[in-house]
């Protein structure tokens, strides 16, 4: 019997949940994790899962993790976003502009390896990551950045300026 209200899905989920609790009780486990992965469009990867913990009073607590959320429009994958990036070759500098809204400036990490800039931001629930190939090698200790209204400007000094 199937109801068209998603109830079938919920009961099925509950059935599995009870089985899971039985398994935990039988095997004396305090914590159990189930996770899965699938490929989303583009280069995104969806990851989902949950952890069940048996609390001190024997009450199970369920925590969800991953980057898939349910909305009325269906499941939405909150990918580790690749920010929109522009790279400008400006005289003796390389300027990288990245749009990474919704994070604290302190959550932004920049790392330079010759001609590659690794940009990442990991705030509460917003994650960005991008490897940016630069037009030339830059000085690793020359990274200057400013963050305004979700737009990050990074200025890097070219490693060799003699070749103009």
């Amino acid at each position, binding site marked *: 019997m199937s109801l068209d209200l998603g109830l079938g899905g919920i009961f099925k989920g509950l059935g599995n949940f009870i089985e899971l609790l039985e398994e935990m009780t039988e095997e004396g486990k305090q914590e159990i994790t189930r996770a899965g992965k699938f490929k989303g*469009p583009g280069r995104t990867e969806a990851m989902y899962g949950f952890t069940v913990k048996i609390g001190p009073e024997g009450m199970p607590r369920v925590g969800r993790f991953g980057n898939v*959320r*349910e*909305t*009325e*429009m269906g499941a*939405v*994958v909150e990918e580790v976003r690749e920010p*929109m990036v*522009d790279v*400008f070759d*400006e*005289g*003796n*500098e390389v*300027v990288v*502009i990245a*749009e990474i*809204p*919704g994070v604290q400036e302190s959550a932004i990490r920049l790392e330079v390896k010759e001609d590659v800039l690794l940009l990442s931001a990991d705030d509460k629930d*917003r994650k960005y990551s991008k490897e940016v190939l630069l037009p030339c090698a830059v000085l690793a200790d020359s990274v200057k950045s*400013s*963050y*305004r*209204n*979700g*737009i*990050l*400007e990074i200025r890097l000094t070219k490693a060799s300026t003699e070749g103009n």
Partner: protein
Amino acid sequence: MESEPRKGAAGKARDVAVAMSVRVAEALSKDVGRGIGRMDPADIERLGAEVGDVILVSGNKKTAVRVMPAYAEQRGSRLLQIDGITRENAQVGLDEKAIVEKTQGRAAQAIVLSPLAAGGGMRSEKDSRYLGRLLEGLAVTEGDRVRATLFGSRFQDFLVVETVPRGVALVHPTTSIKISEQKTA
């Protein structure tokens, strides 16, 4: 061409314009819906602005965008590259003149949006939180059309019915997004 060292805000006031007339040009296709305007970095500096700052664009109406540098081939001719949404919000067409000036956006406490086309599936509170995330960073003013690009290439346009505070409001993670069913003419 050598780039000049940057001066502090209180440094030499050389050739700083409060407002500037620019010619409106088409945005890059990757910029559509981002709420940005690209300008020659020299013009950005002349406005006393820096990358990411909010600038007011005045055509027959006023709207706000965040400013970003134009690519080399679009520099040197006082252009402002904005997409069709921003052009509509400023009531200005391609190749027409607009006035740009630096402005201060304030963090939006709340914005009220009204879906602009049929099929708007975003109704619940959960959806409005997700929507807030899609619009994050945008500078909006009352009467603007804004575009939320959903996962994939689908998008939904909204009319900004109200912003709190009024004026140029920036969508932040803490901005409360309300979806109004109010019909818009």
